[in-house]
């Protein structure tokens, strides 16, 4: 089985089906030992069934999603995602709450890899206030990765309410990538937040959504005590085609002159 698995990770479609047919006679035996042995054995069995045994062994994989070990849960999660079975989407989204410690971007990319036919489920989860904030962050990032333009309105709706700061950042990033001019005022209203990272994220989005009317805001932001806010202000100025102003600052004695020069030369 390990020999087959080594090759399976590099194969898709027809070729994988051939390997699955070779593995098929042994899967029943593995399924019988599914709940025995140590956690690593159970994760191994999950992986084998998830790679060669879907959809027949789907119930095993679904039950593994509620296993006590995050290692087994992650193995099952990845197999089901790779299989892309529409019947499992709901359960997969719900099982995300088991991965609080995992990197959100990594999970978001996995979720996004399911494809467009899961978008409704992902949007629903993103909007669902009963979901833990980090699950919504993952779903928000997945929607951004999938380029789902309608989700920008959902993000705006979430931003208007009081929400977890990490979710707010994810929403701002989504609006920055997928939002339109209609979201600019909301983002502008966030540029004065006390939290420097909040301000930085909002200013960054202004670079993409804003226009010349944001010049005073961005110019003032260059003096912000946080270098991150100043950096994003300079980048935003460049994005809204205010290079002459940046050049002027770069040539002056402005404390952020070096920053202006850098943004002009690079980015």
């Amino acid at each position, binding site marked *: 089985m390990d020999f087959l698995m080594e090759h399976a*990770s590099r194969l898709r479609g027809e070729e994988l089906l051939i390997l699955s047919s070779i593995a098929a006679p042994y899967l029943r035996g593995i399924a019988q030992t599914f709940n025995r042995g140590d956690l*690593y054995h159970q*994760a*191994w069995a*999950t*992986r084998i069934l998830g790679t060669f045994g879907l959809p027949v062994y789907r119930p095993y994989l679904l039950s593994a999603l509620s296993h006590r070990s995050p*290692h087994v849960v*992650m*193995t099952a999660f*990845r197999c089901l995602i790779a299989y892309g079975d529409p019947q499992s989407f709901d359960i997969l989204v719900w099982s995300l709450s088991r991965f609080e*410690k*995992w*990197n*959100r*971007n*990594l999970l*978001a*990319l*996995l979720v996004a890899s399911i494809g467009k036919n899961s978008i409704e489920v992902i949007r629903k989860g993103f909007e669902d206030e009963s979901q833990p904030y980090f699950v919504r962050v993952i779903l928000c990032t997945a929607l951004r*990765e999938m380029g789902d333009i309608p989700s920008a309105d959902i993000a705006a709706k979430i931003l208007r309410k009081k929400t977890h700061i990490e979710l707010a950042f994810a929403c701002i990033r989504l609006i920055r990538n997928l939002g339109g001019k209609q979201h600019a005022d909301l983002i502008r209203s966030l540029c004065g937040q006390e939290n420097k990272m909040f301000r930085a994220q909002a200013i960054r989005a202004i670079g993409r959504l804003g226009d010349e009317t944001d010049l005073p805001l961005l110019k003032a932001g260059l003096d912000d005590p946080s*270098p*991150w806010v*100043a*950096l994003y202000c300079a980048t935003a100025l460049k994005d809204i085609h205010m290079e002459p102003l940046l050049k002027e600052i*770069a040539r002056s004695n402005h404390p*952020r002159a*070096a*920053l202006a*020069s*850098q943004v002009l*030369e*690079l980015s």
Partner: protein
Amino acid sequence: MMRILWTFITCVNYTVLAYFFLLNTVYLTTSLFAFWGLRQYRRKKRNINIDDQTASKAALPITVIAPAHNEELTAVASMKSLLNLIYPEFEVIAVNDGSTDQTVQRLVDAFNMAPAPRFPMASLPASAVLQIYHSKTYPNFWLIDKVNGGKADALNCGLNFARTPLFCAIDSDSLLEREALKRIVRPFLEDTTTVASGGIIRIVNGCTVSGGIVNEVKLPKNWLAKFQVLEYLRAFLSGRIGWSAMNAILVISGAFGLFRRSIVIDCGGFDRNTVGEDMELVIRLHRYCREKKIPYKITYVPDPVAWTECPENIRTLGRQRDRWQRGLTESLLKHIVFLFNPRYGRLGFIAYPYFFFLEFLGPVIETLGYVSFALCIIFGKISQDFMVAFLILAFIFGMILSIIAVSLEELSFQRYPRLKDIGQLFLLAIVENLGYRQILSYYRVKGIFTMFSRTKGWGKMQRKGFAATP
């Protein structure tokens, strides 16, 4: 008078026996944990292979900070190896810490660099920056030329200019394997509370290197270097992997470690007043996170490798060990609050006391032991039982531990493909007890005493350069 002297020597002898017993028992325990940890790691990696993800946008961007001081022979090859790393998004910042040789010029010429503006994003204490260069060939390569201030100062300077969520601190004479970043980042992806992870350091002497990549792994011809190969295997495979499996890591080597930038900045960056800035930072991270009740994890990953050149003559080796011991002593004394303090959990009751009594005070006890053992033999004042016990605890037990380390290497990574090299490693486990260990003890004791001279700086290291590597 003589009776008092012999009573003292007898006491020393028994203390030394107890010391060796304790030291080797700890080593044996960490070796067992290392075996368990390596097995867990391999099984976990087999089931959840996130290589696809670490090669994608999910990977957290990294800044590699390479401080350099008079590294004209190795700097270009090292930077080439860094720029060849396989990782989706990374930047390399070389920090020239007031070199008096051609380090800057060599880098500027080799990488087509020109002065460029770059704005600092943090303000950790560091000496003045003279010039910043940016490579026209490699957009992700920067060089900061600054006034001399020591390694910690150079790291702080690089950290001030870093912008990525993670930074990797390395020695500029280290060669990272091409997949090293992909592997060392794994704990940060699996657990967002990870604040630091370390990789394995291996000896490059004797290996064939071209274009900054280690192509063939062989044992060096020089005997001092051979001993260090064994020593590094023991320190990393048995030691640090074992401590990591016990969740009680106190050291991440300055030659290769990955850290969360924000938390290192929050806790004040590298301490410029110690020569052991790597160990001091890790202890301070523990302290900072525990005192602020921030959930955190510090871990070791067994498969990312950094290759480094080791000293091939006793003088340079002595200077290096003297420096390491001073760094260890300073770091431990600075954070003495850990000692048997329940607030720090297993660090306060296991890891810190181990380093304090066995690594800091150990060399003094060991050296005293060798002297008194020799005196007892010369004056015929030693019992046969004691002699047997001493030989078993000091040498045979030690040998077994070295053999375990080589076996761990063979069971896990098998980096030395030649049977002759493996045989030599086992032989070295015996031979190192006949002089090498004693020399190290001497320099470590010296390090403790010279600590009070407060000498800072880089410590001279005679380099051959990777181009000269066979």
